[in-house]
C-alpha cells in the first residue's frame, strides 16, 4: 500500500500528506504519470476553481493516468474539488468538461436553491444514506468540516453514500467500486476525518 497525492500546484498538499503520515501510511506527492502508476491509493485533492483544476490536470498530462488508475480498480479518493472533478462537467470559472468518472455535474449552491450565507463553511453533520466502506457504521452521524460554494449533482443516487443539509441536501460523499469522493475535508475533520482516511488506506485493490 502506497498513497499518492496528486500535486496540482493550486492545492493544500501538506495537510493531506501529514494526515496520511500520522496514520503510518507511506505517502508520495505525484505529479506525473510514472508517479501515478507507482501507487495503489491515489488522492486527488483540490482547492481552487473547477476550471483551474481541470487545466492543471491536463497541463500535467495526468488526466489519462488518473482514468487508467480508476479503470484498473485501484483506490481513488477525490477530496472537495477533487471529488467534483469526477463529474461530467462543472461551471466554476466557465463551463468545463470534467473527468466523467461519475455521472453528474457541479453547480453553484445558489443555483441549487440555497438562499443563506455562502460559502457553506464550517462543521456539519452528515447523514449516511447507504452502506459503504469509509464512513463509520455506528449510529452516530459524523460531524465534518466543509468549505465550498459548489456541489456535486447527480441523477444517479446509487453511489451517493452520505448527504449533508444546508437548506438543501448536498452530496457529502460518493463511492462506486474503489472510487471514493468527499465534499468535506477529512484531513481537517479531526478524529472523525482521520478515521475515514484510515479506512481508505485499508481498501484492498
Amino acid at each position, binding site marked *: 500500500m502506497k498513497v499518492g497525492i496528486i500535486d496540482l500546484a*493550486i492545492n*493544500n498538499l501538506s495537510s493531506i500528506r501529514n494526515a496520511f503520515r500520522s496514520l503510518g501510511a507511506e505517502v508520495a506527492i505525484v505529479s506525473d504519470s510514472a508517479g501515478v502508476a507507482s501507487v495503489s491509493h491515489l488522492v486527488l485533492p483540490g482547492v481552487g*476553481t473547477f476550471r483551474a483544476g481541470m487545466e492543471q490536470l491536463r497541463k500535467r498530462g495526468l488526466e489519462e493516468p488518473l482514468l487508467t488508475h480508476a479503470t484498473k480498480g485501484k483506490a481513488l479518493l477525490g477530496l472537495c474539488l477533487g471529488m467534483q472533478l469526477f463529474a461530467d462537467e462543472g461551471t466554476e470559472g466557465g463551463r468545463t468538461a470534467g473527468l466523467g468518472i461519475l455521472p453528474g455535474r457541479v453547480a453553484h449552491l445558489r443555483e441549487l436553491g440555497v438562499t443563506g450565507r455562502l460559502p457553506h463553511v464550517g462543521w456539519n453533520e452528515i447523514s449516511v444514506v447507504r452502506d459503504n466502506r469509509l464512513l463509520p457504521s455506528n449510529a452516530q452521524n459524523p460531524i465534518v468540516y466543509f468549505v465550498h460554494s459548489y456541489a456535486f449533482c447527480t441523477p444517479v443516487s446509487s453511489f451517493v453514500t452520505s448527504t449533508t443539509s444546508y437548506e438543501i441536501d448536498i452530496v457529502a460523499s460518493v463511492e462506486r467500486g474503489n472510487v471514493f469522493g468527499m465534499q468535506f475535508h477529512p484531513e481537517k475533520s479531526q478524529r472523525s476525518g482521520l478515521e475515514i482516511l484510515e479506512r481508505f488506506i485499508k481498501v484492498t485493490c
Partner: protein
Amino acid sequence: MLKRRLIPVLFLRNGWLVRSESFCEYKNLGNPVAQVDRYNAWDVDELIYIDISSSDSEDHLTRGKLSTDQQGFSCSIFEVIDAVAERCFMPLTVGGGIRTLDDIQMRLSRGADKVTINSEALRRPDFIGEAAAQFGSQAIVVSMDFVRDNGGLQIYSRQVDCAGLSAGDWIREIENQGAGEIFLNSVDRDGRATGYDLDLIRLVMDKTSIPVIACGGAGSYDDFVELFEQTGVSAAAAGNIFHFREMSYILAKRRLIEATVNVR
C-alpha cells in the same frame, strides 16, 4: 445543520505570541507553537493565527528570518503553519502581511486552508478578486477592523487612509470581488473583555451574504452566548479569554451547549 464555530485567535508579533489591547498594547505570551498541542487536545473548531508585526518597516517576506535572531522560542508564521499542519487536523487560517498571490500560495501550500487579507485589500481591492480567482473564494477571508463613529461603523487601518470609505460600500466591494468570509474585528473592544459590539456586528450582517467571524471583546462565556443569540454570525473568535484561562475553550463550549447554541 451547520454548526456555529468558536475560534481561538493567536496574534504573533515579531515571532512571539502576544496579547493585544485596543490594537496597540502588546504583552508577550511566549512561544506560539507550544500552544498548538493544547488547542489540538481541546478539539477546537478552527485556529486563526494573525501576524501583527509592523509591516510598514519590514519586508514581510523576510519576517521569518527576523524571529530566528531572537533568543528562545519565537517562530515565524511559516514555522507556525508547519507545526500546526503537522500535528493538528483542523482548519487553519493565517493572516498578516499578505500582499501578493505568492504570499498566499506559500501559506496554503504549507497547510493553511484560508488566508486573511486586510491592508492590501484596502490598497488594492482587485487583489481580492485575483486571489479568489486563483485559490477559490473559500480560501480568501477579508479581515475588516472597525471603530465606532457617531453610532456608526468606520473602517480602521493604520496602513491605509480609510477616512472617506463607507463601510457599506466596502462590504459590497469585497463581496463582489469574491471574498469567502469576513473576519470582523472591533478595535474599540479589542482586549477589553466587555462583550462583543453587537449593534455594529448586526449592521455588518445585514449588509452581506457571506459568513462573518466576529472578534473583539469576549470576556466571559456568556459573551459568546449573547453574540450567537443576538446576531447571525457564523463564528465567534477570541484571543485572550482562551490564553489565560485553563480549560477555557472546553468550558465555553459547555456553556454554549447549555444555552442550546448549535455548536459542535
